[in-house]
C-alpha cells in the first residue's frame, strides 16, 4: 500500500534576475492498494514524475507525507527503497555490461547473494520474454530491449511495491502489450502494489484498476474508470479525462488544443 497525503514541491530555477519558482506539485493525495494497478493520469508537466520521485525518496517534499507499506519515506528512506522497484524516466544501462550483469548488479546492491540475484535475473528474463538478450552487452539494444532490461533491473529484488514512470514511452505495440501482460501477472500472481504514470488514455483504461487524475500539480479525481465515466456523464474516457483535468468547458471538441496548452506546461 502506498499512501500519499497533501504532497507539495516547488523548484527554484535560475539565479539572480532569472530566478523563477516553479510549483511542480501543489497538492497531490491518493492511496494505491496492494494487488491493484493504480494509474496516475495527467498531461505533460502535471507533476506526475515529481510525485513518483518523491515516493522513491529521490526528491524531498516541501510538505505532505508519503508512506510505503506503512513506512514513512521521510524517516526511513532506505527501508522504503528496499521495498520499492522503480522504473523512472532515467533508464540508463551500462553499455559495456551484459543485460544479465546489469540486472544482477542491482540485485547485489539490494543485498541479494550472487546465486539469488542470478536466479532472479533468469526468472525475470522468462517473465519479460528476454532470455535471448541476457548475455548480450546492452550497447545497441532497441528501446524495447532497454525498457525490458531496466524493468528487470527494477524488479530484481522482488519488491512488494512497483513504480513505473511512463513505461510505454517509445515502445511499439508488441512491446507495450508484453509490458501490460507482465504488469498484470505481477498484480495477479504477486499481489504487488503497482503505481504507474501515463498520459495515454487507452493504456490507463485497459490496465488500471484505479485512476488518479493529476492536473496542474493537484490530484483532481480518483476512482475506477467506470466510476469516473459515471461521475462526468461521459461515454468516452478521453472526454472524461479532459473534463476532469481541464474543466467542463473544454470537454467537447476543443480537447486537443486545451491539452496541448496544458495548465502547468
Amino acid at each position: 500500500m502506498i499512501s500519499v497525503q497533501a504532497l507539495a514541491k516547488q523548484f527554484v530555477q535560475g539565479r539572480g534576475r532569472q530566478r523563477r519558482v516553479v510549483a511542480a506539485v501543489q497538492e497531490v493525495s491518493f492511496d494505491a492498494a496492494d494487488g491493484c494497478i493504480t494509474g496516475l493520469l495527467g498531461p505533460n508537466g502535471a507533476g506526475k514524475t515529481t510525485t513518483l520521485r518523491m515516493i522513491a525518496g529521490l526528491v524531498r517534499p516541501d510538505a505532505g507525507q508519503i508512506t510505503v507499506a506503512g513506512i514513512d519515506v521521510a524517516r526511513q528512506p532506505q527501508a522504503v527503497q528496499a521495498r520499492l522497484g522503480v522504473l523512472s524516466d532515467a533508464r540508463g544501462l551500462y553499455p559495456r555490461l551484459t543485460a544479465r550483469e546489469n540486472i544482477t548488479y542491482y540485485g547485489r546492491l539490494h543485498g541479494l547473494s550472487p546465486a539469488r540475484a542470478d536466479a532472479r535475473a533468469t526468472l525475470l528474463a522468462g517473465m519479460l520474454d528476454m532470455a535471448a538478450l541476457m548475455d548480450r552487452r546492452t550497447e545497441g539494444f532497441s528501446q524495447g530491449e532497454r525498457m525490458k532490461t531496466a524493468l528487470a533491473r527494477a524488479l530484481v529484488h522482488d519488491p512488494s511495491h512497483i513504480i513505473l514512470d511512463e513505461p510505454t514511452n517509445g515502445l511499439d505495440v508488441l512491446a507495450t502489450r508484453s509490458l501490460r501482460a507482465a504488469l498484470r501477472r505481477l498484480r495477479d500472481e504477486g499481489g504487488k502494489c503497482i503505481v504507474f504514470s501515463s498520459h495515454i488514455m487507452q493504456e490507463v483504461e485497459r490496465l488500471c484498476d484505479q485512476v488518479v487524475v493529476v492536473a496542474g500539480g493537484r490530484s483532481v479525481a480518483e476512482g475506477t474508470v467506470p466510476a469516473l465515466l459515471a461521475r462526468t456523464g461521459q461515454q468516452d474516457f478521453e472526454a472524461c479525462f479532459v473534463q476532469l483535468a481541464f474543466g467542463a468547458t473544454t470537454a467537447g471538441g476543443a480537447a486537443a488544443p486545451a491539452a496541448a496548452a496544458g495548465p502547468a506546461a
Partner: protein
Amino acid sequence: MMRGAWQVFTKELLDALRDRRTLAMVLLSAVALGPLLLVALSLLVAEFEARAEARDLYAVGLDAAPTLRNFIERQAWTVHTAPPDHADALVKRRFEHPVLVVPPGFEADLAAGIAPALLLVSSSANQRAEGSAGSVSALLQAFSQEQASLRLVLRGVPPAALQAVVVQRRDLADPRARAAQFTKLLPFFVLMAVLYGALHAALDTTAGERERGSLEPLLMTPLPRSALVLGKWGAVAVMGMGVAVLACFGFLPGQWLLRSEVLSAMFQFGWREAVLFLALLLPVAALLAALLMAVAIRSRSFKEAQASSTVVVLAVSLMPMVTALQTGGEQPWQLWVPALAQVTLMQRVLEGEALGAIDLLLPLVVAALGTALCLASVVRQLRMAAWK
C-alpha cells in the same frame, strides 16, 4: 556498507577494464612512456657526448697560417673548410659549428710580434654551435699560451712568471646528480600518466553515469551514498595506481635500451627506486582520483566534466614548473603541496639522495586528508536533490 561498496568497486572496475579502446591508449602511453623517454634522453646525451669528443674545426683562411694549423693538428683536431655562407647558416641554425676566420696577414703579423686578431664566428641563439665554441676558444687560448711561452723562453724568462695564480676546478656533482639534469622530466611524465590513467574512469563513473541516466536508478537503491562513492573512488584510484605501477616498472627494462654509456652509468633506476616512486605515487593517485570525481560530479554531461577537469590537469602539469623556475633550491613548503611534493621527492630519488620518514609521511598525510575532503564533497553533492 562495505559489502555494497565492494559491489560498486568490482562493477566499476569491470566496466573500466571492458572499455578496451581507452584502456589501450592509457596502457600504451603508460607502459611505453618509460622506455621511450629513456631512449629519447639517451639519444640526446649520446649526441652531446659525441659532440664533446669530436674535434672538428671549421675555418676560413687557415691555409695562410701554417703555424696555427700545425698547432691545431698537433692537438688531434681535424680542420675543415667552412662553407662560404656559414654566417647565414649559423643564424638560421642550418650549420652547427663555430667558424674560425683567420686574417690574410696572420703568419707575418705573428712572426713580427704584432698580435693578429682571430675571429670566432658563432651565434648564441644557436645552442649547438655555442656548445662547441667553448672548446674552440680554449684551443686558440692554448695556441696563444704556447706562442707566449716560446717567446719568454727565448728571452730567458720562465713561463711560470706569467702565471701568478693556478686555477683548478673540482666538480662536486656525483654522476647521478649530473644525470638528474637529463632525467628531470621523468617524475613529471610519470605523474601525468597517473593523472590520465584516472581521468577517464573518474569522469565515466560520475558525469558519465549522470549523462547515461544510470545515476538516478543507482540512487534509488538502499545503498548508502558513502558506500557508492567509496566503491567508485576505489575503482578510479586503482586505475590510476595501475598506471603508476606500470610506469614505474616500465623504467626497469627501459634501462636496457639506453644508448648512452654515460647515461646508463649515471641513471640507476633499480627496484629500490621503483618502490620509492610507488610509495610516492600511490597516495597521489588516490587523491587525484577523488579530486577528479569531485570536479566531475558537478557536471551534467561528460563533455562538461572534461572541460572542468582541464583545470585539474593544468594545475598538476604546472606544479613541476615551480621547481624549474625557482632559484635557491628546494623549499620546505614544497612537501605540503600535492603533486609538487611528489615531483620534488622523485627527483631526489633519481639524484640518489636518501628520503627520510617525514619526507614520505608528510605528502601521504596531505594526500589522505585531501582525498577524504574530496570524497565528502562527492557524497554531499549526491545527497543534494538538485537534479530535477
